[in-house]
């Protein structure tokens, strides 16, 4: 069985491997064919980003403030020419980001994000080691205070539970033993005088526990690097434990559904055979027939950041992401400041009545901004070159652009009805005048952005 490569399949791929695309971007991706499209997205080192990086730098986001970091990251998600690079960086951000309220140093948080981006698709070992020695993470999960004389098991536990193996695949003894192995990995120059921004990793042999440890059945005088190797090499009768853990999570992230056992098995096989190369696991997912199956379509509930970014991207809006950044708390996701080590729950957990209103308020801000700063888009450009003579035609045009053209006829009718409805509630006929475009096309954008169909990617 091979995938029926259609324009809709390309749109699905771009929603999942990126943050959604414009009609032109979807057309271009479709034209590459399935393998060409996946390769284009996955092997993104070939895409030149220099002009985008210059443009981004010129926006002068204040990277010493949380809100500036949020703007900067969402700008990258929306406008980087490498959508999957940002989608993978965002995956790692969701996987193990550290919270700025505890870490304090904005530069440390920025550097962690850069590390995630640089190593996003490489060998998992390199990424786990870099994160375990990342100053923000060392502070966030207290390994900076983990010493031979006074072990602290916070990072050791989450390293195995949340980051590599999953619960049930290690014991409490493994937690305390890994903690001992990680003693001595700490930070230096972490102080208020430099706003905590100058901290660097240091391996302090004086606070390292040189005794024998037993980790996942192996005994020796292990250090942190050894412990990470043992954890990532850990295998049981079903193969690599970290391969299954990471494969299942990446599948959920990209396919929006729980991975069936045979998929988990297949992905851990690729993980092992590729030498734990994340890029190959991702490539396998994005080429998989199941990834394009009906049951994976429109199943991923966009997180708040994705929601904000997708609306900007798909409307070809310009944005400094200030309104989005300011809306994140209400939507339930303060980027770079999760409340705990697990980060946020995905899926329907993003959605509740308050979060929904916060999303609607943000999209109303976008839809009704008639100025040229903040987040704004050009209503006439959206209709340019198309037949926008009737309510039905405008609805179909915008539904296609926002990838919400898969709704039932009942929902489509409600949108058409909205377009034709007069202020007094009576039913009229929408006509394409600049005044009607300014009022009802903006209104329709707002309504569509708040539909269940747009909360799903």
């Amino acid at each position, binding site marked *: 069985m091979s995938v029926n490569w259609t324009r809709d399949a390309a749109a699905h791929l771009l929603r999942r491997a990126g943050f959604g695309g414009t009609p032109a971007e979807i057309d271009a991706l479709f034209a590459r064919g399935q393998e060409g499209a996946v390769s284009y997205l996955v092997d993104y080192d070939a895409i030149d980003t220099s002009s985008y990086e210059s443009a981004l730098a010129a926006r002068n986001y204040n990277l010493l403030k949380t809100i500036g970091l949020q703007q900067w990251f969402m700008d990258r998600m929306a406008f980087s020419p490498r959508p999957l690079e940002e989608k993978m960086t965002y995956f790692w951000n969701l996987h193990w980001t550290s919270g700025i309220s505890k870490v304090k140093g904005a530069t440390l948080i920025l550097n962690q994000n850069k590390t995630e981006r640089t190593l996003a698709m490489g060998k998992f070992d390199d990424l786990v080691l870099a994160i375990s020695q990342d100053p923000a993470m060392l502070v966030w*999960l*207290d390994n900076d*205070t983990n*010493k031979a004389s*006074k*072990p*602290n098991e916070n990072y050791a*536990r989450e390293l195995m*539970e*949340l980051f590599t193996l999953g*619960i049930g695949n290690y014991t*409490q003894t493994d*937690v305390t033993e890994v903690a001992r192995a990680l003693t001595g990995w700490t930070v230096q120059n972490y102080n208020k005088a430099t706003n905590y921004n100058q901290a660097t990793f240091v391996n302090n042999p004086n606070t390292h526990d040189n005794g024998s440890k037993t980790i996942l059945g192996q005994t020796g005088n292990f250090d942190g690097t050894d412990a990470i190797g043992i954890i990532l090499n850990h295998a049981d009768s079903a193969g690599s434990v970290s391969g299954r853990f990471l494969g299942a999570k990446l599948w959920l992230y990209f396919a929006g559904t729980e991975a069936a056992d045979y998929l988990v098995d297949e992905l851990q096989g690729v993980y092992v055979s590729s030498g734990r190369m994340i890029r190959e696991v991702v490539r396998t997912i994005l080429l998989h027939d199941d990834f394009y199956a009906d049951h994976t379509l*429109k*199943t991923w*509930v966009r997180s708040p950041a994705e929601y904000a970014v997708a609306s900007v991207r798909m409307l070809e809006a310009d944005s400094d992401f200030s309104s989005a950044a300011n809306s994140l*708390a209400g939507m*339930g996701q303060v980027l770079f400041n999760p*409340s*705990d*080590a*697990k980060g946020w*729950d995905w899926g*329907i*957990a*993003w*959605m*509740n*009545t*308050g*979060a*929904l*209103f*916060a999303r*609607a*308020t943000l999209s*109303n801000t976008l*839809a*009704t901004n*008639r100025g040229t700063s903040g987040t704004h888009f050009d209503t006439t450009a959206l209709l340019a070159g198309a037949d926008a003579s009737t309510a039905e035609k405008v609805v179909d045009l915008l539904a296609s652009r926002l990838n919400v053209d898969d*709704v*039932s006829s*009942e*929902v489509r009718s*409600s*949108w058409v*009805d*909205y377009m034709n*409805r007069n*202020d007094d*509630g009576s039913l009229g006929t929408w006509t394409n005048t600049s005044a009607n475009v300014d*009022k009802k096309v*903006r*209104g329709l954008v*707002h*309504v569509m952005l*708040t539909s*269940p*169909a747009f909360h*799903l990617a």
Partner: protein
Amino acid sequence: MPFTRRDFLIRSSGFVTVSAMVPRWAVKGATRFEESVAADYPNRTLVVLELMGGNDGLNTVVPFTDPLYGTLRSRIGIPTGSVLQLDSRQGMNPVMTGLKALWDAKRVAVVTNVGYPNSSLSHFQSRDIWHTADPTLAQRFGWLGRWADSVLAGSDNPLSCTAISQSLPKTLLAEHVRVPTFLSLASYQFQTDGSFPGDHTNQVNAFLAQNGAEYEIENTPSTLSGVGQDAISSSDILQTVGTGYVAMGAYPDNSLGAGLELIAQIINANLGARILYVTYGGFDNHAGEDVSHDPLLTDVSDSIKAFFDDLDGHGKSHDVLLMTWSEFGRRAQDNGSNGTDHGTSAPHFVVGDAVVSGIHGDPPDLAHLDSNGNLSIQNDFRSYYGTVLSDWLGADSSAILGPGWPNLGFLNKSYA
């Protein structure tokens, strides 16, 4: 409240038929509602306070006469002479003067050593276990969600269960009852284009219509639809809450104070609230607990005191009970970072006029720690929950939690 979901649907439907707007879950829930037994105490409200991160019970209710306490807590122990004595062996952390005042008024039950056996010490698994009251994690819905399904499914009231929270707490996750969730009411409404106020109703109607429609994908979109409908119906009612409200308690300036004040406003508005949920975070003190824990307990204690003062001032405290929980207590011995690692059991507080005032359970047994250095469990958390279910909510607790969890006797069964 002479305002029902059906009224709302009819009133706001405008151009779509009412039948198209009735969400599927409401139809499905109807059968269940007919079969269910009404709550015995429909006027009673339960307020649940979740202390997120694992509150350190040993520094909250201190076993101040136990010499092992000072040994185990050599770095961050509470000076035993300073505790607010509850009985001859245990005392509250000295910062908890507010809760102690409620204790002195015989409105506080302390339930000690609450937990469950064989904890993995994971925050996230333990949180799920407490939310669902199921250590096997087979239950999909929360323990109070299951209660709500059995009693409230089919109810017209969109505000029977409400969470003051950034995300919906799993405790309240139900099959048939949806739970409005918000941190403040300031922006809890569907805003539309300020340039065209005349189009507002049309947009709201379009929003409702797209959320009332059938979706081909079975699960997620219909769940999203229900959220959209409940957002509008709850927002409509809540816009009047808090208007002209005068707090009769001195709420501290923090998110818990604000959350409990909002809860007091909802209670005072007589909206038929049965479960109100609020969270407070920051208790995962692996390091620097000596600096961070007392302020957290101050916030908790002062906020609860202000809440009951406020309810008293409005004559509303009689039908309100507050209970606390946290995913675990902490390691008996402090660690070298002036903090504590993950533990097991802890004491919890139940506050209200219906409590049997006093300490229910023994002091923590510091002489018999488990192989990880953690405290033993005396009161299973399902007994803690079950006592509230049966004696406050009038429910058949065994139907929700399974049989065999003894009642802990911290609620007055003849309270009326």
